[in-house]
């Protein structure tokens, strides 16, 4: 599903060059739940951004669903992000003046779906995360855990094959964090591939496979020891 081979990414300013990723190689199979761990500044988020086509890379090859994404236009990358990838962020990244329904609606709007189809998908996604009754609430009226569940619903509503989570429990207390991880596990069991960046060793243990990153390189990677479940997709 995801194949990165010798990816390098350098951030340049007038004075310094920062090597965020060096010869970074990783393969993620369909249906896997992979945790990426490593200290701050190790390149985890850069990896996630490149994996999610949010950033380009300097050298190496990256194939997503066997498609070489390095030469894609900005529009094509947007289309793939919209149709194949779901994002979950540490700080939830909900739009503050849109209610829950409209927040989940955002990626679907760019898919050109009919109003009835969007409504059905939003209803199902919010049902899955247990927030169907809060459709008209704005983010400020929800707890942190609820906001993250809305973000998960937003990521799931488009039925992505690939979910990228960047410290999804980083801003949550332990109870809420557990609920969110339970939800991610459930989503993975329904067939969605998940790559999750985390600092939390306990959270990482619940993934099928751990990948440790240090100084922009994979330093430790568990083998494909766990056969992931592949089932019907979560929504739609």
């Amino acid at each position, binding site marked *: 599903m995801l194949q990165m081979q010798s990816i390098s990414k350098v951030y340049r300013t007038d004075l310094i060059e920062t090597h965020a990723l060096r010869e970074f190689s990783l393969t993620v199979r369909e249906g896997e739940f992979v945790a990426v761990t490593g200290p701050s500044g190790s390149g985890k988020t850069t990896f996630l951004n490149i994996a999610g086509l*949010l950033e380009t890379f300097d050298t190496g090859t990256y194939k997503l669903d066997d498609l070489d994404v390095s030469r894609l236009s900005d*529009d094509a990358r*947007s289309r793939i*992000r919209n149709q194949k990838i779901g994002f979950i962020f540490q*700080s939830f990244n909900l739009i503050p*003046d849109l209610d829950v329904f409209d927040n989940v609606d955002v*990626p679907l709007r*760019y898919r050109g779906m009919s109003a009835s189809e969007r409504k059905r998908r939003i209803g199902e996604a919010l049902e899955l995360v247990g927030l169907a009754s809060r459709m008209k609430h704005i983010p400020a009226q929800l707890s942190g855990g609820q906001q993250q569940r809305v973000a998960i619903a937003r990521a799931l509503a488009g039925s992505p094959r690939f979910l990228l989570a960047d410290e999804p429990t980083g801003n949550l207390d332990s109870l809420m964090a557990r609920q969110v991880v339970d939800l991610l596990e459930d989503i993975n069991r329904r067939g969605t591939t998940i790559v999750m960046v985390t600092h939390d060793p306990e959270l990482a243990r619940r993934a099928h496979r751990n990948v440790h990153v240090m100084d922009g390189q994979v330093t430790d990677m568990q083998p494909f020891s766990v056969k992931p479940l592949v089932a019907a997709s979560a929504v739609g």
Partner: protein
Amino acid sequence: MFSYNLRLALKSLRRAPGVAALMIGAIGLGVGVCVTTLTVWRVMSSNPIIHKNDVLYAVTLDNWDPNQPMYPTSPELPPNQVTYRDAMAMYASDIPARKVAMRKGMFVIDPVDVEGLKPYQIVSRFTNADFFPMFDVPFQYGGPWDNEADESAQPVVVLSKRTNGKLFGGQDSVGRLVQLDGKDYKVVGVLDEWAPTPKYYDLTNGAFEEPEDLFLPFSVGIGLRRQSAGNTNCWRNQTLNTFDEFLQSDCVWIQYWVELPDWDRVEQFQSFIDNYVREQKRLGRFERPLNNHLRRPDEWMRVNEVVRDDNRVLVGLSFMFLAVCLLNMIGLLLAKFLGAAPIVGLRRALGASRSEIFNQHLVEVGVIGVGGGIVGIVIAALGLFAIRNLHDNYDALTRLDIPMGLIALAIALVSGLIAGLYPTWRICRTQPAAYLKTQ
């Protein structure tokens, strides 16, 4: 998608109402000033008789002082009125399909039939029967007097709609009498609404004056032996003790128009007036070089500078002011859009393409533009109201009509979109990953 973008635009403006108000105010102020000057300029530069522009001609003959031109700043121009002698000589020609010699007059009208209305001064026009069909003057009741009335100076009168309303309550007054300077005149016609702006047929007495309140045969005015109530210009040192001496003088005080339906007649009449002037030269008149003109209404208004240069400059300045307002708006838009960059980054991450982000922000700019247009219309209405109160007789120039309202909206929308192009382009270049951590 447009309705979605429209909803997002309204939400975005509500999110920062102060900035939104500043932007709408800036564009509204610029548009308001532009529309104010444009409204005045548009009416000033319009041609109310454009449908007959090819057949009507104002006639000018250069009988002025050989030593100095009448208009020092435009020495090539002959006087814009003619003498009585020359008017009558031209009137004898049958080349024009219609012809009019006319001048402004003033009477005291005694509204004997209207209780409580005291005698008052009334502006009139002495003209010929051809005046009405020539200038497409509409009638509510009756019609023009006939040629016999012109020839025999019959005491007949055509009333304006306003005068008829004042004297006869708007009823059909044809056949009734009105008393002017103590003498009775019979009403033969009542005009419908008619207010050509500019008043092209007599630019010498105020291009933006309202049309006269009543009209009488030119010959009646001569019979009254009374000089013009309008502009009269003389240059030759002549004795003018009597009205007959005035009629024979080189004083110009009559506006002369002809209707020439085809080019042959134009050439014929041009030859006619040129030959007439050559003949007069032999008699010691017309000492300046031959300089006779037949000018169509549009040219007539141009050479008489109905739209003065300072009006054009004012319109130019108002658009420069709009540009300054737009520069301010660009700054505000940049600040606003870049302030919302994290949300744009998020939308990009969730699959919005650059063009979708561009369209979303362009709709927001469009909403600001339309809002500015509405504010601009209000400001323009206030500006025109102020001009109306500062200047008499500017009523016609200061009417904000529906076309001008639409023009205001169009200017606001287009200028808003132009001002919004750069900030919109900047924001749609946002890299999706740049703000996701900080959103």
